[in-house]
């Protein structure tokens, strides 16, 4: 195995193109064992492609690395035994029942007691009483839960979850994340891609990827600190006018409405402050300096990367 160095995923310089279009560019990352690693980025940024490379479903054009200590190019078979991959699209058999799906997975991985393993998993998932229901007839939330159950059934060491909570209601989402934390507590490493900021904040570490480039990574605090972004939150009336007035002013990199407030952010503090000065004392507007939210950071990163890579 890995010599116990505590790294589950260690890849360098991964590059992958489809039909001449580079989807993943020179991507390097390290994921610690037992941690929950969040993978963020806009649609089409290369998250799914990276995950597929990690579990041996795609061969990188260049780059190398290990997954659970196994070479991602040569040892795909060994990696597959110890990795649970939950695809973005529901990929269990819709015309098989909950129990039959789980038994199928258990048999494929060679579990000695496939029926017993499926039974235990049904109990754990809270699906007792629904075991004979066809997987295709389950609601979105239950489908996700079943898919996660199928991934964890063979006791993998690494879970790769590709947007597992897309289209799932908040309660089911919360349950799902509790389960992921419980699994991590049992020693599992989890790499999870998501669009939700609240989910990103529940990860031990996050990485932001856009247009195939890994732009930043670290803990949430590190990412926010590393952004060097200053944000003013404005509340009050006539915020729409303010938005129009500030957009494009020197130092103002981003103006984004958040409900009843407005986030005005920029990397150049001096320029930002001089640009907003005329409105600082306007009556009806309340300004206060805050740290940027994760979303501010990501949107700013995305805007910047669009300029750089497109």
């Amino acid at each position, binding site marked *: 195995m890995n010599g116990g160095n505590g790294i589950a995923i260690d890849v360098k310089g991964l590059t992958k193109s489809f039909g001449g279009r580079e989807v993943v560019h020179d991507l390097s990352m390290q994921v610690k064992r037992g941690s929950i690693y969040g993978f963020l980025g806009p649609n089409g940024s290369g998250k799914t492609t990276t995950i597929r490379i990690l579990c041996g479903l795609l061969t990188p054009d260049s780059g190398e690395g290990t997954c659970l200590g196994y070479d991602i190019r040569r040892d795909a078979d060994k990696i597959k035994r110890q990795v649970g991959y939950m695809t973005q699209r529901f*990929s269990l058999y819709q015309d098989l029942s909950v129990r039959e799906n789980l038994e199928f997975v258990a048999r494929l991985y060679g579990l000695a007691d496939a029926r017993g393993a499926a039974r235990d998993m049904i109990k*754990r998932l809270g699906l007792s009483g629904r075991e004979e229901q066809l997987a295709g007839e389950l609601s979105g939330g239950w489908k996700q839960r079943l898919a996660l159950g199928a991934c964890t059934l063979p006791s993998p060491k690494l879970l790769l979850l590709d947007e597992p909570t897309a289209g799932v209601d908040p309660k089911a989402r919360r349950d799902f994340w509790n389960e992921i934390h419980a699994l991590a507590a049992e020693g599992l490493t989890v790499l999870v891609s998501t669009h939700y900021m609240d989910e990103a904040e529940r990860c031990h570490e996050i990485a932001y990827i856009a247009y195939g480039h890994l732009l930043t990574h670290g803990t949430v605090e590190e990412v926010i600190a590393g952004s060097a972004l200053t944000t003013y939150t404005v509340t009050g009336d006539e915020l729409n006018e303010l938005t129009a007035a500030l957009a494009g002013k020197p130092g103002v990199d981003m103006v984004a409405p958040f409900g009843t407030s407005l986030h005005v952010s920029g990397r150049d503090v001096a320029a930002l402050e001089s640009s907003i000065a005329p409105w600082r004392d306007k009556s009806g507007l309340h300004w206060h300096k805050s740290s940027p939210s994760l979303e501010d950071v990501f949107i700013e990163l995305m805007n910047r990367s669009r300029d750089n890579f497109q």
Partner: protein
Amino acid sequence: MSAIDHPTPAHEVRERFGFWKRSYAMLIKEFIQLRRDRVSFAMIVMLPVMQLMLFGYAINTTPHNLPSAVLLQEDSDLARSVLKALENTKYFRFLYEVHDVDDFDNLLKSGKVLFGVEIPRGFERAVRRGDKPALLVAADATDPVAASAALGSLGMVVQTALKHDLYIGDPPEMPFEIRAHARYNPAANSSLNIVPGLVGTILTMTMLIFTALSVTREVERGTMEALLSMPIKPVEVMFGKIIPYVLVGFVQAFLIIGIGVVMFGVPVLGNLFLLALLSTLFITTNLSIGYTISTVVQNQLQAMQMSMMFFLPSILLSGFMFPFAGMPAWAQYLGEALPLTHYLRIVRAIMLKGATMQNVRFDALALAALMLVAMTIAVTRFRRTLD
């Protein structure tokens, strides 16, 4: 739902017999899916019944160059003249000249020839004496269309040809008697030929389509991605997908033969076990070809089209619709590459002629070879990644 409430008991993984276990997992899954797909399930029964009714009547064509043998018990000029006359009709082509009755019978039984002419000892002398000796013509009437046209032509043709022969001159009547003997299917009943043929045709159609759709269906439903991320090998996927349909094919073959025996009075003269064994081989060959198609195409529509591309020549060139012997050489070569051609020979020989393994071994070998080729292509073509 929480893991803390119900910690999962660790289930032991056993590496032994991994190949069989994974194939078995796949097989069980396919079985369940087939059972749930009621329309496909109904087709397994409906298709053979419908086809049997539709093909109740035969299609007629005039054969030529029927492969023939002569059992020569006397080597005389008259005998040669008679043979020459027969060959000049273009109906017959003499491939074998034998001197032993057993060899003669075996040629007919194995289907190497459809026609046999026996010239008895003392034939020429008997003609000269005016004894009207018998010239035995044996026809394999399992293919009644081919046999009857040829048999019907015999009398006139031989007489006309011999007019110019200096031994005979211009006799007022036939100097010898032609004793035609339709073997295996004396009544020239065409359903006897059609029913065994239908076993092969229906199996080709259903088996091909079942497996041709199997891999593309997984791709289109999105289950392939998960399947590929699990530790299963291409051979295991293939076996898991083929084996359930071997049973399906078996049920169909049983159904067609059953209806044939009960409704059309088709005999099963040969060994049933041999028939079952070689039918299984044929079923597996078709499933492998269907599976190969499935690994080559992009979607289910292409899979259907490609299956048809294979199925049509199978019907036309295998000897099911038209007598194989009557086809041009290039078509015969093509036909030899189709499993149905070989299976038709096998199933007709076993059911109607009581043939043994010895008689049909070359066709059985050809089927096995086609199966192995298809399987090899399928396993090497199966994409293990999404690249």
